[in-house]
């Protein structure tokens, strides 16, 4: 054989080997604008992609259709609820292994929830365990253990609540309720979730690489209890600039483009011959709204609030700003959430009636209001505020948009002092409690600067939490929504939006999660 031929064969072999491995490996490359900071879902609210893929929960909320979810067994293969709705008994699946090789036991579950309530953890997500008996005592440092958390045997956990709490099973499916390994997590201490070496779960993927502000890589867990995932690897790239993300996507450096990062690009993709057939869109279970602070003038006057509701042309914002990809909302519970009612009363855009109401309230020449806006947030908010500013002028509202630093904004808002702001809220778990309690309970109404101090609403929301009959509960929520939006006129519902993605043709089984989050579980996703 001549040297040239040998050389050619060698080169060919190397090429084949390299190309072969590259082709064989199924990699999904996804973007994120920011670093998730940690995989420890007890100490963060912001990013759940890592927890959703590295850990499992006792119960899982799976997407069964656009905006539709179902609660299915997760680490618990079944559970029982006592007749009074206070005792939950979870029977764990046997033989589930953590990434470190240990088998999941009831002690791990008890440890995980106890860790959340242990003051040393400084956890932020404690609200999901508010109803557990003895949670408050543990949080305040008055007890060394949580009375309501018990491992009955190796595979049985009993959770006792101090009062019935209807959404408890749904809450157990939220990413915050992910289950950790006792031995591993204790050893990792404060480093848990920050590096691959100090992160361990039972989930379909294992954290392999974590470079702060650059990338995270996850690899398939061969021993996953539902079977090995179809993907070999997930690469999350942190790129702060949406335009760069789009370029990376179009040059095939990324498999998924999340249009949330660049709303202005949606029309481009819908018009593109190349991409229009690769758009995947689904409803987001969440609601955009404007707040009105009843403690401050002029929103202390119900007529002014009513006028503000009528002065905003929501259809126009949805059409102009979001390419019509969503639905107008008229209450608190958005489409897709349990107890949603499509046939309630609606708010009609009517600037003339709004102007008359303002005059009646003593502002015949118009009224000044201030809308707070966080300077570091995406341009979307600026756009909404500017449109509303010019829109409501017709009804006599003179809007000043006040730019605020994020830290100052949240500090001012939590003391109930922000006059008005636009914001959205997406479901953590599929229950109205996640919306009504968050905004209109006695605690929520202050911290969100709504200050709708309506004792009937407070009582109704508290009652609904402990009700066990679903039909009665939904009926009560409907009454509460009516009272809040149409009698108290406590906020301005805007719309719920679709979440639009564009994916490379090779990506299969990419499903927008029921709640419409950017963070999702990739167990079923495939690449060709």
């Amino acid at each position, binding site marked *: 054989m001549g040297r040239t031929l040998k050389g050619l064969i060698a080169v060919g072999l190397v090429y084949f080997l390299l190309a072969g491995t590259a082709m064989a490996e199924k990699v999904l490359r996804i973007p994120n604008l920011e670093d998730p900071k940690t995989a420890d879902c007890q100490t963060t609210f912001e990013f759940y992609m890592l927890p959703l893929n590295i850990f499992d929960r006792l119960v899982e909320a799976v997407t069964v259709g656009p905006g539709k979810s179902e609660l299915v067994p997760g680490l618990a293969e079944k559970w029982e609820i006592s007749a009074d709705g206070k005792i939950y008994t979870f029977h764990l699946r046997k033989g589930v292994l953590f990434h470190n090789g240990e088998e999941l036991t009831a002690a791990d579950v008890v440890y995980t929830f106890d860790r959340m309530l242990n003051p040393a953890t400084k956890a932020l997500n404690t609200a999901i365990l508010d109803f557990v008996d003895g949670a408050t005592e543990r949080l305040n440092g008055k007890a060394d253990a949580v009375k309501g958390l018990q491992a009955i045997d190796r595979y049985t956990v009993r959770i006792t609540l101090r009062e019935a709490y209807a959404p408890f099973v749904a809450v157990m499916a939220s990413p915050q309720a992910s289950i950790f390994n006792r031995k591993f997590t204790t050893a990792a201490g404060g480093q848990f979730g920050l590096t691959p070496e100090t992160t361990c779960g039972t989930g379909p993927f294992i954290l392999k690489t974590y470079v702060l502000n650059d990338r995270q890589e996850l690899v398939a867990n061969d021993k996953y209890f539902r079977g090995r995932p179809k993907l070999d690897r997930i690469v999350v790239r942190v790129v702060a600039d949406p335009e760069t993300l789009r370029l990376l996507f179009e040059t095939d450096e990324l498999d998924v483009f999340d249009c949330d990062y660049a709303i202005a690009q949606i029309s481009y993709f819908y018009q593109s011959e190349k991409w229009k057939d690769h758009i995947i869109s689904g409803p987001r279970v969440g609601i955009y709204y404007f707040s009105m602070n009843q403690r401050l003038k002029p929103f202390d006057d119900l007529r002014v609030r009513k006028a503000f509701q009528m002065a905003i042309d929501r259809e126009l914002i949805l059409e102009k700003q979001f390419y019509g990809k969503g639905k107008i909302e008229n209450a608190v519970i958005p489409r897709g959430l349990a107890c949603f009612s499509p046939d309630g009363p609606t708010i009609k855009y009517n600037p003339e009636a709004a102007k008359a109401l303002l005059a009646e309230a003593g502002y015949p020449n118009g009224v000044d209001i201030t809308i707070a806006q966080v300077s570091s947030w995406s341009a979307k908010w600026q756009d909404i505020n500017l449109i509303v500013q010019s829109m409501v002028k017709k009804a006599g509202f003179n809007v000043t948009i006040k730019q605020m630093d994020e830290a100052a904004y949240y500090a001012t*808002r939590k003391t109930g002092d922000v006059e008005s702001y636009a914001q959205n*809220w997406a479901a953590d778990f599929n229950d109205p409690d996640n919306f009504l309690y968050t905004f209109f309970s006695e605690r929520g109404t202050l911290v969100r600067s709504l200050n709708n101090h309506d004792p009937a609403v407070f009582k109704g929301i508290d009652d609904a939490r402990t009700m066990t009959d679903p039909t009665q509960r939904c009926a009560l929520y409907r009454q509460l929504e009516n009272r809040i939006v149409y009698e108290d006129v406590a906020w301005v519902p805007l719309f719920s939006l679709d979440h639009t993605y564009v994916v490379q043709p090779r990506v299969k089984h990419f499903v927008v999660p029921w709640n419409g989050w950017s963070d999702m579980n990739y167990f079923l996703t495939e690449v060709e």
Partner: protein
Amino acid sequence: MLRYILHRVLVSIPVLIGITLLLFVMLNVIPGDPVALMMKEHASPDVIARVRTQMHLDDPAITRYVRFLAGALKGDFGISYKINRPVTGLILEAFPNTLILALCAALVAWLIGIPAGVISAVKRQSVVDHFLWAFPFWASPCRSSGRPF
């Protein structure tokens, strides 16, 4: 020379204390609550109050400042609220690159600056001297505005 170095080191101590104190006061005066910022949309008054206590944010300002100084002297700058990691580790991670960058910049400055200074001194009042005197004035705003020259 040794005395000079010692003098400079001693002078830098009150300067460092002054800077930290000034920054500490500024951060305490401007509005903002780190826990509210960590919780963002999920803010709940009870959790904010509890975590503030757990993080010792409700301690008197002087106690917190002294605690910070004591930690800083031992090389412990506390934990970043924003990214949940020890600040010292983050600095150490970035420091080698910063050092390389600074050394390279210094090297370039010395290689150009010292010969240029010598030439200027030898050829006083010449065109070259005037050019070398004026060039940095023109170049430095170009550098800081990021425009190439």
